[in-house]
């Protein structure tokens, strides 16, 4: 670990590489976090199956690419497929737990996540998969810093999608009714909004966003049936740090997490990277709680 630290000190260009990679990956993480914030805010559900949606989006892209489709064209397909899945899951299970106790919905989506994870394991196998994007790698600073174009595509895509979502929520009729439902579902129903439909769209839209994130993940990185939980917890972390309903904050928190995680992976070694992510979640929650208690004490 110390030797790695010394290496960073001697070759600062490595830090540049880590930061750039972190920012580009962080944008993809932020994408999944958008979806989680949306469902959390509108439906008051924390969706544990978030990471599994990401994983399934990745499989859509993987199989289509294997069949010879241009990987970039598979992104909308993944979004559409996951939209349908999300809608179906809402109609089957999620609508029954919308206004129940939050623990019930956490457990129900946890069950869904196990189903999806194990189905993927049975149907697609436990192998690690990755899709070749067919894009080039850019070299900077005499080849010391490499940036694959697909990461840039992912980054730009995440920003565009985020901006689109923002506009959708602000301007469109459906987006407005989503916000109304988030504020007060009962009042929204009285005003003639079909909240059930809003919930279904929200959940399906979330799945679609995760699907996009997933197809970017499989192009830049890799997927396997068991990576879901890591993405769920990362999304949760990002949403907590950014604060619910703060879309710009999600982007910053996401890129921040990407950078921190990259450095941790470099310094601690990849075998501890996952452990680091999960421990970071615990630390963030504790810090948040500590700050809240402090605020409460001032009020007293």
């Amino acid at each position: 670990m110390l030797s790695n630290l010394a290496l960073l000190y001697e070759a600062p260009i490595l830090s540049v590489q880590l930061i750039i990679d972190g920012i580009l990956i962080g944008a993809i993480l932020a994408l999944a976090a958008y979806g989680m914030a949306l469902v959390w805010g509108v439906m008051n559900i924390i969706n544990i199956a978030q990471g599994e949606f990401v994983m399934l989006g990745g499989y859509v892209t993987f199989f289509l690419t294997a069949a010879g489709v241009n990987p970039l064209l598979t992104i909308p397909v993944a979004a559409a497929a996951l939209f349908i899945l999300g809608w179906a899951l809402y109609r089957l299970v999620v609508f029954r737990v919308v206004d129940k106790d939050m623990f019930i919905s956490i457990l129900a989506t946890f069950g869904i996540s196990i189903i999806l994870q194990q189905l993927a394991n049975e149907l697609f196998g436990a192998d690690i998969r990755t899709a070749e994007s067919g894009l080039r790698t850019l070299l900077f600073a005499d080849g010391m810093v490499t940036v694959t174009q697909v990461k840039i595509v992912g980054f730009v895509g995440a920003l565009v999608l985020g901006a689109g979502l923002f506009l959708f929520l602000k301007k469109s009729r459906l987006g407005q009714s989503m916000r109304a439902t988030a504020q007060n579902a009962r009042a929204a129903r009285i005003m003639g909004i079909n909240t059930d439909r809003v919930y279904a769209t929200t959940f399906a839209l979330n799945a679609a966003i995760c699907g996009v994130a997933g197809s970017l993940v499989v192009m830049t990185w890799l997927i396997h049936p068991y990576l879901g939980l890591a993405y769920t917890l990362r999304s949760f972390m990002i949403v907590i740090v950014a604060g619910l309903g703060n879309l710009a904050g999600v982007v910053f928190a996401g890129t921040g997490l990407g950078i921190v995680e990259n450095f941790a992976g470099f310094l601690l070694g990849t075998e501890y990277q996952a452990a680091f992510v999960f421990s970071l979640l615990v630390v963030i929650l504790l810090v948040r709680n500590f700050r809240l208690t402090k605020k409460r004490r001032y009020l007293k």
Partner: protein
Amino acid sequence: MTDNIRSALPYLLIGSAGLAAPIIAPNFQIQLAMLWMMIILALTWDIAGGQMGYNSFGNILFFGIGCYVTAVMQRELFFDIAEYANVTGKVVTLTSYQYFTGFSLGLALSVLIAVAVGVVLGSGILGLRGHYFAICTLGVGVAAGELASGWEFVGAGSGMLAPIYPGEANEQGLFYYYTFFVLAVLCFFTLKRLYSSRFGLAINAIRDDEDKAEAMGIHTTRYKTVAWCISGFFLALAGGMFGHLNNFIDREVAFPSSTFGVWMVLMAILGGKGTIWGPVLGATVFHVTQELFWTYLFGWQRVALGVLIVVIVVFFPQGIMGWLRERWPEKFGETVDTDASTA
């Protein structure tokens, strides 16, 4: 007098059945030992999850601590580390004196460590409320597993062997059957006693309204930490024994978040959380069903597990005890106002 006998009857029946079971069905000793372990898992989850309203996904942490600490103790007591590192993969044999000394010292140490971890970690994360707590514990459980799989001292990804039981194979089954049986009985009666004391009332008050409980003068943080440590205590013991019964320990065995970690929640909810008999009932029903039907599902058990979670949580959240209580409230000492219900 007859009332006493009547109320003691179920305990006597279950107790004598438990004592006789491994002798009547010697081929099922391990499965029966697992049944008692499942009961312990469900009961300990229910302390925080059911009685206190703190739904934890990370109790498996204590189980893993028990597994690893007991096995490491066995290794460190009678082997020096360099020698052991050379024989990884080779069968490690101990005399029965060494085995049982190491085993009991290991269990003692694992309880100490588990309770210490419970105090340190608990005083922090038990301050979190509701879903924040649930997700935080989910992170804790998985993080512990990840750490164990990266740590060379405990064998990292390749795991470590627990020493071989000094004696016949069926003797091992019998020994662990009775240790699990005794632990389960101990756990049940400790909790039964606790739930009917001031402690039980306090944690129920925390579940019902924590702010009010605090305003009433209950030291909520203290009670919460103690409750969490009690589950840690029993889970560490169960984990230490399970690791030895299994003979091999790695991250999947010690921190099985996707099996035991989920099952304990499921079993407690299936039986009815917040009751003493619920987890026992849920664990029994779940374990028996699992042993009978699971093997016919081949690779699809875990898919079935997910379906089971969704179905139970969505359609049957009150559990077996809750259902019985709705069906026959008078048996639970509730007076039913028939006039009000017909009006």
